[in-house]
C-alpha cells in the first residue's frame, strides 16, 4: 500500500477555559482544585428559578482571543441552549452559541506560511465533573459529582479541515496555545484541562473532490496524543479505503496505553440537541469602540516578539523562538535587556543553565528561580572579570537556592578571580617548579602544552585565577 496515495484532512475543535475570576453566568469563583461543590450557587447548580447573567470579563477575554486569532468579531451574537441529559450538566442544557457565534473567519499561520482557517469562536459554559465508582456511568455502582467547574467560561475554537498532517496539527495547537497565552486569555494547559482538543479526521484519495467520511476523536489529553492518534487514524482509514471498505461516521476514543482508537458510538444516531435561543439572555451586543479598546489592550503576540528579537536585538531566530514559548519567559528576558543585559548572553544563560535547572526541578515559567536584576548583575561580574564563566555556573546555582545577589555570594564564598600579580605569581611559580618536563617541552617550541600548565594553575587556584592573565604570566616566566 502506498501511503502517499492518500490525503489526510483534519479539523480541530479546541476548548479553552477563559481566565476569569468568576464563572460565565454567575459570580462563583472559577478556582481549580477547591474541595468539591464549594464554588457553587443556585445558578451553576441549576436550582429551580435561578437565571444566568453573562459575565462581561468573559466576553472581553473571548473578544481578545478572537482578535488574537485574526477572527472577525460579530457585533451582535446570541446565546442558545444545547439540550441533553447528563448528571454533570445541572440545567440539562448547556448555554452556548450555535446560530450566531461571537466571532468567525480567523486563522493560525504555520511556519511554512500555510494558514489553517478558523471557522468560528464562540462562548459557552463548562459542565461539572463526574467520578464513577467503575469504568463509566452505565456500569458504575455509583457516581460522584462535583459542580465547581459547572459554569466556568469556555471559548470553543473550530478550525476548517485544513490540517493535512499530524505535525501540522501539533504546530497549529502549539501556535494557538502560545498566542492565547500571550493574549492573557487563558492558561491553556492541556494537563489541567484548561485546553481540550477534539479532532475530526477524514482521509481521501489524492485528487478526489469529495471529503472523506469524518470520524471524531475524543480523549486526546496531550499534543503527543493528538499526533499519535492522527497518525493511527490516517493509517487505519487509508487501509480501509485500500481494502475497498466503508469508513463509518462515528466517534472514536483514543486509548493512550494501547496506542489505538476504538469505536465509541455511531454518529448516525447522533443526538438532537434541540438548539434554540436562550430566552433568559438578551442578545450580546458589542460596539466598535469596545472592540477597539480590546485591540488596544492586546499584549504583544509571539510572532511580533520574535520579529523584534531577531530584527532589533539581533538574536538568532532559534533563540527568539525558544524564548517565546511562554509570556513569562519573554517578560523575564525583556526585563534583563531593560536592565542593561546584553541580549545574546542573557539568552544563552536562560536557554542553558536556567532552563536546565527548571526542567530538572519541574518548575514552570511563572516561577523562574532567579530575578532579572540578579542575573544581569551576574553577567556584569563576568564582564568585569570578577568571576569566570565557569565559576558563574556555581554562583547561579547558589542564587537559585538562596535567592541571594551574586555579588554577595561571590564575596561570602571568596570566589573572586585572582588577578593581582603577587598572588598569581606564587601559584604560577609553584606550577612551573612542579612540572619541569612540560616546561622543557614548551621551551622546545611545543606551544600546545601551555594549556596543560594553565589548567594546573586554574586547578591550584580552585578556578579563581584569571585565565588570560595566567596565560601571559606563564609565557613571561618560562620564556624570560
Amino acid at each position, binding site marked *: 500500500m502506498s501511503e502517499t496515495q492518500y490525503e489526510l484532512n483534519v479539523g480541530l475543535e479546541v476548548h479553552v477555559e477563559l481566565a476569569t475570576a468568576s464563572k460565565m453566568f454567575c459570580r462563583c469563583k472559577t478556582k481549580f482544585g477547591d474541595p468539591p461543590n464549594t464554588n457553587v450557587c*443556585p445558578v451553576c447548580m441549576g*436550582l429551580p428559578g*435561578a437565571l444566568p447573567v453573562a459575565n462581561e470579563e468573559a466576553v472581553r477575554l473571548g473578544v481578545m482571543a478572537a482578535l488574537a486569532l485574526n477572527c472577525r468579531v460579530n457585533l451582535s451574537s446570541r446565546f442558545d441552549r444545547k439540550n441533553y441529559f447528563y448528571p454533570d450538566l445541572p440545567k*440539562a*442544557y448547556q448555554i452556548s452559541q450555535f446560530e450566531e457565534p461571537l466571532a468567525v473567519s480567523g486563522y493560525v499561520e504555520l511556519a511554512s506560511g500555510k494558514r489553517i482557517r478558523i471557522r468560528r469562536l464562540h462562548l459557552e459554559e463548562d459542565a461539572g465533573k463526574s467520578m464513577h465508582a467503575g469504568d463509566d456511568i452505565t456500569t458504575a455502582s455509583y457516581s460522584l459529582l462535583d459542580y465547581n467547574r459547572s459554569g466556568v467560561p469556555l471559548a470553543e475554537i473550530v478550525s476548517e479541515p485544513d490540517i493535512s498532517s499530524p505535525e501540522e496539527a501539533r504546530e497549529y495547537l502549539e501556535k494557538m496555545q502560545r498566542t492565547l497565552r500571550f493574549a492573557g486569555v487563558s492558561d491553556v494547559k492541556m494537563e489541567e484541562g484548561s485546553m481540550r482538543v477534539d479532532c475530526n479526521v477524514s482521509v481521501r484519495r489524492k485528487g478526489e473532490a469529495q471529503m472523506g467520511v469524518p470520524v471524531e476523536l475524543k480523549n486526546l489529553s496531550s499534543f503527543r496524543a493528538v499526533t499519535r492518534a492522527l497518525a493511527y487514524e490516517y493509517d487505519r482509514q487509508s487501509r480501509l479505503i485500500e481494502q475497498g471498505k466503508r469508513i463509518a461516521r462515528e466517534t472514536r476514543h483514543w486509548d493512550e496505553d494501547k496506542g489505538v482508537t476504538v469505536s465509541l458510538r455511531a454518529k448516525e444516531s447522533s443526538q438532537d440537541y434541540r438548539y434554540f435561543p436562550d430566552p433568559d439572555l438578551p442578545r450580546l451586543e458589542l460596539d466598535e469602540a469596545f472592540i477597539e479598546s480590546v485591540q488596544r489592550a492586546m499584549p504583544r503576540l509571539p510572532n511580533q516578539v520574535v520579529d523584534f528579537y531577531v530584527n532589533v536585538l539581533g538574536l538568532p531566530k532559534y533563540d527568539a523562538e525558544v524564548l517565546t514559548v511562554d509570556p513569562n519567559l519573554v517578560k523575564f528576558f525583556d526585563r534583563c535587556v531593560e536592565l542593561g543585559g546584553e541580549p545574546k548572553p542573557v539568552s544563552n544563560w536562560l536557554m542553558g543553565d536556567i532552563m536546565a535547572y527548571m526542567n530538572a526541578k519541574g518548575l514552570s515559567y511563572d516561577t523562574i528561580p532567579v530575578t532579572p536584576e540578579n542575573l544581569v548583575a551576574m553577567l556584569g561580574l563576568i564582564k568585569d572579570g570578577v568571576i569566570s564563566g565557569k565559576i558563574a555556573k556555581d554562583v547561579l546555582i547558589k542564587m537559585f537556592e538562596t535567592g541571594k545577589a551574586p555579588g554577595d555570594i561571590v564575596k561570602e564564598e571568596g570566589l573572586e578571580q585572582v588577578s593581582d600579580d603577587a598572588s598569581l605569581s606564587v601559584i604560577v611559580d609553584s606550577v612551573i617548579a612542579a612540572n619541569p618536563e612540560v616546561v622543557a617541552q614548551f621551551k622546545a617550541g611545543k606551544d600546545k602544552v601551555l594549556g596543560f600548565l594553565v589548567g594546573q594553575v586554574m586547578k591550584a587556584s580552585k578556578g579563581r585565577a584569571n585565565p588570560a592573565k595566567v596565560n601571559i604570566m606563564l609565557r613571561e616566566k618560562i620564556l624570560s
Partner: protein
Amino acid sequence: MEIWELGAKNIREQVLRKEISAQEVLDSFLARTAEVEPKIHAYIELIEPQARLDAARVDALIMRGEDPGPLAGLPVALKDNLNLKGVQCTCASRILEGYISPYDATAVKKLRKAGAVFTGKTNCDEFAMGSSTENSAFGVTRNPWDLQRVPGGSSGGSAAAVAAGMAPLSLGSDTGGSIRQPASFTGVCGLKPTYGRVSRYGLVAFGSSLDQIGPFGNSVWDCALALEAIAGEDPRDGTTSKRPVPRYTEGLKRPVKGLVAGVPREMMELVTDPGVRREFERALKIISDLGVTVVETSLPTTEYCLDVYYIIAPSEASSNLARFDGVRYGRRAKARDLDEMYYETRGQGFGIEVQRRIMLGTFALSAGYYDAYYLRAARIRTLVRRDFDKAFAAHDVLLSPTAPMVAFKIGERVDDPLAMYAADVLTVPVNLAGIPALSVPCGFSRPDESGPELPCGLQIMGKPYDEETVLALGYAFEEACSDWFVPKTAAMRKSLSSQEECEVVVRDTI
C-alpha cells in the same frame, strides 16, 4: 369589622399610626384562614411560625421609630413557584415535594424589605401549566364564589386567598393569563406587568420569554402598592429593564378623561358567555362616561395567538423542566441505571399535563420540525407584537373581557385540553407581546339559572412600561363600580363562613 375586612390601604395606615400592630393584623388573617381554608384549599403550605417572626420584626421596627417599609406588616401569600428561603417550593408538583428552597426570589426579597409578612405558599397548576388549578399534585382549590367551581389558574390559590379574605395581597405568575384569568374568576384585581418590569429571578421558569410575576389585591390601589415594591432592574435577571420605577400608587388619580381606548373586534368574537359580553359592554359604557373615547379596533393576528403560545411556551418549558432529573434535588425514583432513573423520576414526578407540554415542546424543537413549528411560531409572534404596536399608535389602552367565560365547574374541562386552553384565548396575546395588563372586576354573570352569580373581569392592556395609565384607568373604573361591587364581595365572604368544609380532591394526574 374585623381587621381582615379593612382592606390593605386602611390596615397599612393603621399599623403606621400604631393603632394596630402587625401581629394583630396577622392574627386576624390567620383566624380568617383557619375558618375558610378548609373550604377553599388555597394554600399548599401555611408558614405560621415564620409569619409570626416576620410580623414581630415589623412591630419592633415601628416601635423603634424606624421605617418598616411601604407594606408595613401586610400579610402576603406567595404562589408556590416563587422561591422563599427555608420553605418548601413544590410548584404543586410531586417532583419537588419536600424540596426546601435555599434562596429568596428577588421579588420576595424586595417584598420582605418593604415590610411584607409571608403567610405561606399557595396552590397552583403544576409548574403553572393550567387554567383551573386542577393540575395540582396537592388537590384542587375551590372558587370562594361557588365551591363547586374552579378559581381559574394557574395562580388559583393566590387569587382565591385574596378573594376569600385570607390575605390582603398575594403574588402570582402570568405566562399566558395565569394572574388575570383567576383574578377574573374570583372577582379580585390582578396585574401582569410588562415583561422585564419585575425580576424573574427565583420564579421557577415555565415559559421564560413569557413569564412575569405580578400581584393580586382587592383593589387597584393594592396592586399598585405591591408592584411598586417588586418592580425594578435586577442584576440577577438580564431581561429586566433599567427604567426607573414610578410611584404607581401616586399615579392612580391621573385624569383618564381624553384617553382613547380600543376594543379589538377579533377578541370580542372569542367571547362565548353572553353574560360576560353583557357585563363588558356595560363596563365600556361606564368607561366612556369617565370621558374616555372608546372605539372599535383590530388585532388581526389574534386568531393565531393561542396556537403560537402553545408552541412557544411548551418549547421553553421542555427545556426549563429538563433540570428536574432526580440528580441533585427533588424526587428521585429507584432505578437500576441512569436512563431508568431519568424515565422513572420524571414519569412518576410530573403530572399528565406537564408531560403533555414537555412532549409538545420537545417535538416542536426537534431537528426537522424546528423550522415548521418553533421558528414559525417565533415569526408570527413578531407579527403579533407589530399588531399591538400599531394598535397602540392610535390608542392609549386596549380593552377586552379578561376571559371569554366565568368560572367553570371542577372537572368540567379537565379532560379536554383544548377546551381548557380556550380559557386563555384573551390573555395569551398580551404575554406574546410582552405588554402590561390588568384584570379588574367588572360585573357578574349567572351561567346556571339556579346557581350563584359569578364575577367576570375587564382586561385593560397598556403600552410597554405604561402600567401607570393601565392602573389609572382601572382605578377610575373601580371607583365608579365600588358601590355595587364591594358589598357583593362582602356578602360572598360572609356566606363563605357558613359553608361546609370541602374534601381535598386530588386528581389522578398520572
